[in-house]
């Protein structure tokens, strides 16, 4: 039987808007809100092209065109900071994602409810400590006479203590490790909540088909959190140039303002030193614009790649 679906003619724009009016009521106010709070202040970006002094009314400041941008890119430390920021962000992203998912998967395999809850609660506690405390503890642990060296020596993995805190090649990895310590538990929460939407019947069916634990994890659990994973990954790729509160300011700032400066100085630290602290707001804004442009390029590229690979996309 030739069942031909009757496709209704595409309704006119006005008609569709009316049909979707409820959705519009539920979203347009938010749109206006965000336009006001996040987009309206963008007039401030004009200050990147000025020699901006807050004391003067906005347009009394001198226009300097691209001078602020040119200054930024002329500084070798700024270019180094870009490299440092990317390296630390990439390492942190990989460490964080892998640790969060691993922890979530392993937790998911625990069936004793009380134990599972206890582990969840305990592992997310370091999130509430400030970076100052966590970095301070890390500096104690990785000191030449600290516990990490003591354990490595005892296990015979090294002959003499390693100077973790003073040699540049360790720095980025330390940043990643400190991140995991503090945030793995917290980051796993999202994945755990995603896992709770996986149909248990799938697990049962797989078990009846004789699938072992790893097969179940591989074919059910991981695909179940795939969309969360991809979406978070795309968002985080956008933040590789430096996001807010991700610790990639705090850790280098607290631990790296010494002989390790060539490895530890990030864009934000550089902007703080040469921008805000000196009252050079034009420069700081120029750096901000640069960061935003790079972030958006990264974001759209990651999104495009996700689309190509047939994964759920962000935009």
């Amino acid at each position, binding site marked *: 039987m030739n069942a031909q679906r009757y496709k209704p003619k595409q309704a006119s724009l006005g008609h569709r*808007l009316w049909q*979707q009016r409820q*959705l519009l009521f*539920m*979203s347009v106010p*938010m*749109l206006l*809100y*965000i336009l006001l709070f996040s*987009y*309206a*202040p*963008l*007039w*401030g*970006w004009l*200050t990147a092209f000025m020699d901006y002094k*807050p004391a003067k009314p906005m347009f009394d400041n001198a226009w300097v065109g691209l001078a602020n941008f040119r200054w930024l890119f002329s500084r070798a430390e700024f270019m180094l900071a870009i490299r440092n920021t990317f390296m630390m962000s990439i390492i942190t992203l990989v460490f964080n994602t892998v640790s969060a998912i691993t*922890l979530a998967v*392993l937790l998911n*395999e*625990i*069936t004793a409810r009380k*134990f599972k809850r206890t*582990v969840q*609660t305990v*592992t997310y*506690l*370091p999130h*509430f*400590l400030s970076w100052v*405390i966590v970095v301070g503890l890390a500096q104690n642990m990785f000191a030449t006479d600290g516990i990490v060296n003591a354990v490595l020596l005892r296990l015979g993995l090294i002959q003499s203590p390693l100077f973790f805190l003073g040699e540049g090649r360790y720095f980025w990895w330390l940043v990643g490790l400190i991140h995991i*310590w503090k945030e793995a*538990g917290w980051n796993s929460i999202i994945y*755990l*909540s*995603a896992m*709770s*939407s996986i*149909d*248990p019947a799938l*697990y*049962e069916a797989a*078990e009846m088909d004789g699938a*072992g*634990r790893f097969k179940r994890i591989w074919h059910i659990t991981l695909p179940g959190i795939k*969309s*969360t994973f991809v*979406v978070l990954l795309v*968002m985080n790729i*956008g*933040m590789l140039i430096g996001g807010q509160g991700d610790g990639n300011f705090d850790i280098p700032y607290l631990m790296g303002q010494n002989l390790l400066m060539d490895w530890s100085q990030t864009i934000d630290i550089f902007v703080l030193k040469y921008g805000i602290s000196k009252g050079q707001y034009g420069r*700081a804004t120029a750096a*901000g614009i640069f960061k*935003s442009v790079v972030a*958006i390029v990264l*974001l759209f590229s990651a999104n495009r790649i996700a689309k190509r690979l047939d994964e*759920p996309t*962000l*935009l």
Partner: protein
Amino acid sequence: MNKKTLSRSRWRRSSHYWNAAFHTANVLFMLALMVVTLYPVVNTIAISFNDGTDALRGGIHVWPRAFSLESYRGVLSDEYVFSAFFISVSHTLIQTVLNLVLTSMLAYTLSRREFILRKFITTVFVLTMYVNAGLIPNYLLISRTLGLGKSYWVYIIPTMLSCFNMIVIRTYILNLPDALVESARIDGAGEFRIFWQIIAPLCLPVLATVALFVAVGAWNSWFDTHLYNAGKPKLHSLQYLLKMKLATTQASTNAAMSSTAALSAKPTSTPITIRAAITVISALPIMLVYPFLQKYFVVGLSIGSVKG
């Protein structure tokens, strides 16, 4: 619930050797992980209960060496502690509820693939996470243009939406079976009702997660007080008050200019112990929220209601 017990007993019956080994290794790993992540917390608590000058020597690991409540007394004796606590609690509750409702509502509309403005609004929102106008323009908007400065509303009004959380919720909703919404539509339910009565209850795990994120963010906020309400002690948030306490302790040990300042107030609580005490005070209430929310992380909650 029945399904879970059923599968557990089935697992028990079919215990392969390496299955048990995995489970043991997993449990051991979890225990080790707990020790490692608990250490910094226990260490902080121990330091907070230690005498400040003694704590300077370091070497305190999991137990105070010279017990003292002086740091807590110093922090909690401030006459504004209770009002700050009240401000923070009310701010957290209001912001969490408001933000959750508005953000999830938006997430729902953006999960509807046929929605006309879907791509546009999503892009507008996502971009805000990567675009920042800078401190001064934002400050001028909120305090000058909108006149929210020096008031309680500055805590609530600029924080009613959050883009990251919106994406998280939207992703979760997209994973729910389409059949849910379709059947509800056929039954003639409006979008708002679908969202409120069908989708939202199914999203409890992710809503609990987002509630936690928003609550922690609201509870930890001090920068808004710093920018807009610093001159009004009655509007200080708890975090701000605690941060000031830490800053004053550090300042009294940093006096560079004159001998008077250097000699005044030899502290029995030093920055180390004050920092630990304020961490405990500020983190304790919010840490108690999570166990409360954990019960929403129940597997099969959403699916059950589809089949049933």
